[in-house]
């Protein structure tokens, strides 16, 4: 039996989702505990984004139940507690980086106070963008845009952070830097994180547990516990072995 890290935060039971005739999610269940870092790993098009969108209440589920702290009811407070980082940065092009980060507060509360200026600055420094507050999104590199999106997600001090392949499309060096920063912030803020990826190595490096999803119609293939100590070493032989194991699950078919 795995030891339980904390109290259960989120539990998903029997999620089904169809788009017309296309059955995307076919009975997906898993749970997430307080302070846990969960990776959802699956091939392209298997419905990873769809799962996150359902959790964030951006899409309806056809069947299934979602429990928050043991209650099925999804309250306003739950959404206040949750932030999403998308596959693309989704920054407002007419706002500077700082204004983009502030947007999350403006939307959440209606107006921002002077105290919030400091909160925004702190979020920017947390992702290493202190010097770029006045830059516009088009003036940033891909990695910096994703950092800005991360700052926007963090500024509302969520306890649950959903990330949808935020590092896909970035070069290897930037990816690895950002992986480490996300882990650092997750630890510092004591957040519960769900991180979607199609890269097994990334999942193993980051996750406490990996939810391995099958091809469409998607089920949970396996829940893998990664019991390597943090900080982890990318060259660790055990990471390589786990990666081999996961690739074998997919019959060595390319995951990308």
């Amino acid at each position, binding site marked *: 039996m795995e030891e339980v890290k904390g109290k259960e935060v989120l539990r998903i039971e029997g999620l089904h989702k169809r788009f017309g005739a296309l059955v995307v999610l076919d009975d997906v269940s898993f749970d997430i505990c307080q302070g846990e870092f969960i990776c959802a790993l699956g091939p392209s098009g298997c419905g990873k984004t769809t799962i996150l969108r359902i959790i*964030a209440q*951006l899409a309806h589920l056809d069947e299934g139940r979602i429990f928050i702290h043991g209650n099925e009811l999804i309250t*306003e407070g739950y*959404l206040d507690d*949750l*932030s*999403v980082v*998308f596959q*693309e940065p*989704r920054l*407002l*092009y*007419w706002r500077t980086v700082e204004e983009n980060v502030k*947007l*999350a507060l*403006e*939307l*959440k509360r*209606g107006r921002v106070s002077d105290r919030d200026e400091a909160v925004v600055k702190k979020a920017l420094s947390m992702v290493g963008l202190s010097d770029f507050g006045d830059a*516009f999104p088009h003036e940033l590199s891909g990695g910096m845009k994703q950092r800005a999106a991360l700052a926007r997600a963090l500024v*509302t001090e969520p306890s649950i952070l959903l990330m949808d392949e935020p590092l896909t499309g970035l070069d290897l060096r930037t990816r690895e830097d950002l992986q480490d920063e996300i882990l650092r912030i997750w630890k510092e803020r004591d957040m519960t994180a769900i991180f979607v990826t199609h890269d097994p190595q990334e999942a193993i490096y980051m996750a406490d547990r990996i939810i391995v999803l099958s091809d469409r119609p998607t089920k949970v293939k396996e829940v893998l516990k990664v019991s390597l100590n943090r900080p982890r070493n990318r060259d660790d032989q055990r990471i390589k072995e786990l990666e081999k194991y996961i690739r074998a699950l997919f019959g060595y078919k390319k995951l990308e």
Partner: protein
Amino acid sequence: MRAKIFYSVFAISAFLVLWFVISGYYNSPLFPGPIETVYAFFSILATQDGWYQIGVTCYRVFVGTLFGSCVGALCGILPRYSKMAEYTVKSVVYPLFESIPSLCWVLIFVVWFGLSEMTPILAITAAVIPFFIINIWEGVKELDESLIEMAHTCTRNRLRILQKVIMPMLYPYAFSAFKTSFEVAWKVVILGEVFGAACGIGYMLWISYEVYAIEYVFAWTLCCAIIIIVFDYGGFNYIDRRYMRRWKR
């Protein structure tokens, strides 16, 4: 740039000379030349009343366009939120305002309101509404839904999303609607003032015509032309270059 200025100056001079020659040839009070016209123009500007008439017309253009922009923008954006609104706007409101000639509006409003402030203002409103509707529609079609979805993860409050995310994406479309509407409004306001007002440039045009002071008809016409050109080139183009960049993709 130098060449452009040279050609403009040349074209304008040629036009003035031609005008001068033709009017000189006819030598009739019904065809005043540039000198008489410019003289009348400055004699208008020399009086307080002249400036008052210009001011009144500008005020009507402004208020009428403002009303039109509110109604038009609302009709442009509501279809996003309700099917009912979509059908109403697409099959009733837009065709109505699109198809009725401005002169008809003017006559209808004269019947209803008489010679009042309301007549030219509402005529402008009715004339510019379709331009706002169509531009805002265009903008709504081009909205970046991924940004709106992102906003939905921050709040449930749709009004805030409208204010902070959707409306800024529509600014460039509203701006170009204002630009077109302004030109349309100037044409309509003159019509409205001729038939339905007791002051303003259109009214003065009508009065000058009634007393056969054709040089004043020309002078008031010159007034309109100058105001439109100044606003278009100086006003709108300047704002476009200087301030609208950040709202465009």
